[in-house]
């Protein structure tokens, strides 16, 4: 049985003057330990889909099952990293990474220890007492990742987490995140509109087409690329080939 199952999902946004179909007939699944990317132009409902999977929005139709059970935010099965870090500026880094644990009442000494070890593994030393504004963008996004991982979610969702960073920081962070997720054998979904990022990081790429958002095509990333860290994968000949394929598909979507 699959780890995450999304079946016949529909979602429509209502306003006073209109009803916009954001997602139509989405069916997909994610296996445990898999890294899947949702790729597509803006307006194809990727973020809506993530919010539904996270249990933040109730879909107008269809179901989402995690290990055969409906999603509930209170169970902390899902970790969600946003486009920007959204570290709380009035809290220290230490308080920020312990936020999830505090919210669901799991703030034990062992868990605190774990969180601060995770921070060190991310290459962040002696920052616990600092405030977010004292850290660079890349460092802050790493802290946000630690905050997300600290509650040990079964499924990690990344909503364009690198889009606000400069290119060099982004490449470095891709390696870092990919490495960390492999180490902890986490299942992850990455939302992005960057083809290169999707290829370099994931095992499988699901291409979405817009208005209404639906699954257009699925690409399997070749074994050779999967095993390489993102930065090296970008230099592999197979990377360029897949890039061209996806590019052509995106052109087709544009013409429709």
């Amino acid at each position, binding site marked *: 049985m699959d780890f995450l199952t999304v079946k016949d999902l529909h979602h429509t946004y209502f306003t006073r003057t209109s009803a916009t179909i954001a997602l139509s007939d989405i069916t997909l699944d994610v296996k445990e330990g898999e890294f899947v990317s949702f790729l597509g132009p803006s307006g194809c409902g990727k973020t809506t889909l993530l919010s539904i999977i996270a249990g*933040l929005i109730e879909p107008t139709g269809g179901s989402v099952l995690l290990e055969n059970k409906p999603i509930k935010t209170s169970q902390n099965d*899902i970790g*969600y990293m946003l486009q920007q870090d*959204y570290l*709380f500026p*009035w809290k220290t880094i230490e308080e920020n990474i312990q*936020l999830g644990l505090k*919210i669901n009442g799991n703030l034990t000494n062992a868990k605190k220890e774990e969180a601060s070890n995770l921070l060190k593994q991310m290459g962040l030393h002696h920052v616990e007492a600092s405030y977010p504004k004292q850290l660079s963008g890349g460092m802050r996004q790493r802290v946000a990742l630690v905050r997300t991982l600290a*509650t040990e979610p079964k499924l990690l969702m990344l909503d364009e987490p690198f889009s606000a960073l400069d290119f060099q920081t982004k490449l470095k962070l891709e390696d870092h995140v990919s490495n960390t997720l492999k180490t902890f054998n986490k299942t992850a979904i990455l939302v992005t509109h960057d083809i290169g990022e999707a290829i370099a990081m994931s095992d499988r790429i699901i291409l979405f087409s817009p208005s209404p958002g639906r699954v257009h095509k699925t690409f399997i990333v070749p074994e050779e690329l999967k095993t390489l860290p993102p930065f090296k994968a970008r230099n592999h000949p197979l990377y360029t080939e897949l890039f061209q394929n996806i590019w052509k598909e995106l052109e087709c979507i544009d013409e429709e």
Partner: protein
Amino acid sequence: MTKNEIKNLHQQYLHTLTREKRIVRFFQLLIFILFFLFWELASRQQWIDPLIFSSPTKIWNMFIQKSIDGSLAANIGITVTETILGFLAGTILGTMLAALLWWSPILSKILDPFLVILNAMPKVALGPILIVAIGANMTSIVAMGTLVSVIITTIVVFTSFKEVDPNYIKVLQIFGGTRTQCFKEAILPASFPTIISTLKVNVGLSWVGVIVGEFLTSSRGLGYMIIYGFQVFDFTLVFLSLLVIAVFATIMYQLVELLEKKIIQD
């Protein structure tokens, strides 16, 4: 450029800063002194009517006399206490009301027009009703001080609650945060700067409420001193009260600023 040269330039820069500050302070003091000197002179030369505009020396003499007999200190004590109480009650009640409105979006929609009406109302006009209902005592004056600031606090703080970036709430909701936790961890701390700035406004408003309240009850306090001075045509007393109010209102404002610096470490 050598290290020494940079150090020298920095010294020069610091020097210009101190010089500028000195110039500013000098002229501030000059205006202050000239104002009182001119006032004194104008009053003695009968350029202005000394009966109406009094003079600094007369005010000073009255200050000494009223300080010695203790009546000034008593009146100051009463008014300052009332103002602080009204100011605290207005701010706390206003923030609590704002929290309630944030808690229940439907309640905020229902109450919206009433808040607009109450805000537009000149609250001091309710003074006579308050005094009749509560009695001509300290409670009704504190109630005035509160009433003047509570609605505007509610509106301003509620607006700032609504303007907190919803993504902070999203972060908490993903962790399974309840509405109480969202309020405590994100909404309230994110709005602290706004709450502090309403404190500053409320200092002024509470003074208005309390002084008007004392005008109406006419028994004790600085507002009473003003209205009494007016009735017996003793404008030295009026000016003395005004100057004392200016001093204490400034002190309260400065204290709030100090608090602001302490809480917001930016």
